[in-house]
């Protein structure tokens, strides 16, 4: 390495082309940084004023969203976002980890490879397609349940949750599988030698050892779920009220495209405000993600 550096140092002074290219590559590298700075700046510039005007407390904890009467409380949306995301992660986590165990430890290599390919495909399906499937297959099923319980039929929180489950499963499966595979084989061998069964060695040794990787998967899945908009719009019913499992809900993400087309003035500013709130939540989740990633070594790729 030291040799190459000395050569570079000699060459650098000589050629204009070299210096230009160096500068160009530096600029390319800096693009990402500039984008993040601009995004942060303009999210605050666009969303800040309405929050200042309404008041931080009234905006975040206000329970009524009624733009026509200038009531901009986004608390129901925050609660709905957290409920939908939390529910989705709670369902997807055990399923995802079990599938990861199957792929990493139990399935024969060829079958595991084929199944992994199929699950990869699941990750690539556009969110509007999930929304369409949810609206056609899932929501009518839940209509039956709502009718049976004498509730009004509508899109609902349960449908949003289940759609999000399918959308974050590939993430949780692949990250957990990587983490489980990264556990040294000796750990399990030791457990087996001590007389534990195959499953005991997996669930009492491998999974606890892969914990940090699995946590990273959860955080990554949470980030995806909380940011999803289009699939949820198509199944969630979209009323800005406090969430119930079988009632319509509107999340932070979905409020923006729903009202975008017919909003202007303060109303549009309020949508920017929702964007800022979401931005802050996502940044917080990403920070947690980076921290768990640093702590756990048994994980390498998102």
């Amino acid at each position, binding site marked *: 390495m030291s*040799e*190459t550096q000395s*050569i570079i140092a000699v060459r650098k002074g000589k050629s204009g*082309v*070299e210096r230009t*290219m160096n500068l160009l*590559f*530096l*600029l*390319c*590298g*800096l*693009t990402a*940084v500039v*984008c*993040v700075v601009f995004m942060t700046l303009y999210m605050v510039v666009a969303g800040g004023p309405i929050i200042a005007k309404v008041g931080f407390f009234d905006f975040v904890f206000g329970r009524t969203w009624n733009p026509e009467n200038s009531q901009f409380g986004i608390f129901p949306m925050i609660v709905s976002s957290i409920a939908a995301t939390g529910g989705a992660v709670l369902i997807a986590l*055990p*399923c995802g980890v*079990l*599938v990861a165990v*199957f*792929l990493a430890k*139990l*399935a024969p290599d060829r079958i595991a490879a084929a199944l992994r390919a*199929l*699950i990869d*495909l*699941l990750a*690539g*399906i*556009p*969110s*509007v*397609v999930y*929304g*369409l499937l949810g609206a*056609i*297959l899932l929501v009518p099923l839940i209509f039956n349940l709502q009718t049976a319980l004498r509730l009004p039929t509508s899109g609902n929180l349960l449908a949003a949750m289940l759609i999000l489950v399918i959308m974050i499963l590939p993430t949780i499966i692949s990250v957990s599988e990587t983490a489980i595979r990264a556990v040294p084989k000796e750990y399990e*061998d030791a457990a*087996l*030698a001590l*007389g534990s*069964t*195959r499953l005991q060695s997996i669930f009492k040794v491998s999974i606890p050892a892969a914990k940090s990787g699995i946590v990273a998967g959860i955080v990554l899945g949470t980030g995806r779920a*909380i*940011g*999803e908009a*289009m699939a949820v719009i*198509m199944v969630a019913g979209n009323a800005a009220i406090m969430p119930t499992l079988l009632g319509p809900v509107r999340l932070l*993400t979905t409020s*923006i495209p729903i009202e975008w*087309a017919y909003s202007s003035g303060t109303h549009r500013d309020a*949508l*920017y405000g929702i*964007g800022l709130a*979401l931005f802050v939540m*996502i*940044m917080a*989740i990403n920070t947690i993600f980076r921290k768990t990633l640093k702590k756990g070594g048994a994980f390498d790729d*998102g």
Partner: protein
Amino acid sequence: MTGEVSRQTVITVKKRRPLETLLYAVILVVSIGVVGLTAFLIVYILIQGIPAISVKFLTTAENPILKTVGIFPSIVNTLYMVLFTLLISVPLGVGGAIYLNEYAKNRRLVGAIEFATETLSGIPSILYGVFGYVFFCVLLRLNVSLIAGVLTLSIMVLPILMRTTQETLKAVPQSYREGALGMGATKWHLIRTILLPCSLKGILTGVILSIGRMVSESAALLLVAGGSAMYMPRGNLFEQMSHSGSTLSVELYRYAMSRGDNKTAFGIAAILIIIVIALNLLTRFLAGRLNR
């Protein structure tokens, strides 16, 4: 190998426990469930969607008077969007990766760039939409247009391109660099004649992944590039790019939500799924070639 032997003997010696068998069953049921659901969803979309696809569907615009449906304008919009986004984002992404891997010596700067890339890949598309609208459409006065969509998408796919390129650059043996520099090649010469050709397949993988992301994208484009694709883009290229227009995904959303036309929506969904499967196979093919 010792693990294999000991495991087998342990299992045969020990009596099977009912709880253990139950757990095996649960793992199998969940795995088959997830995989079966995936297969079912894909087949369902194709079965529902393929009947809607015809030559007319693919090659004409919607005609409200004749009541025929066609998605040609949004196919054109999608192609424009993919092409121009790649023109902007590939040089930036590849260049950024080269800087990180070949030039950068300042740890703090590398940290900042990597932090920024990770952050960009974690931001949801709806926020890209809000930012793109505020920045490109309003501040830069590009209005709601294809070009605003292109610029927004360019930022979205930048992290994908940077990461894949960086990974392949890391895989190029250090001896190649030392050999070239030792023979008197300049750094730019080294990059141009050795590093870029060596990492071409990796860059292509990044490009394919980026195309997948662009084709799937709907939330951001709905805000910055607009909804309607009923008419063909008109005028010269510059005029076409400064009009609003929807890509296939946005068009699916519009048909399903504002029109309630599920047949057309499934037709578009089937096309999207076919594109996704094709891109997926292509990355697999490239990865196979890469390992050889």
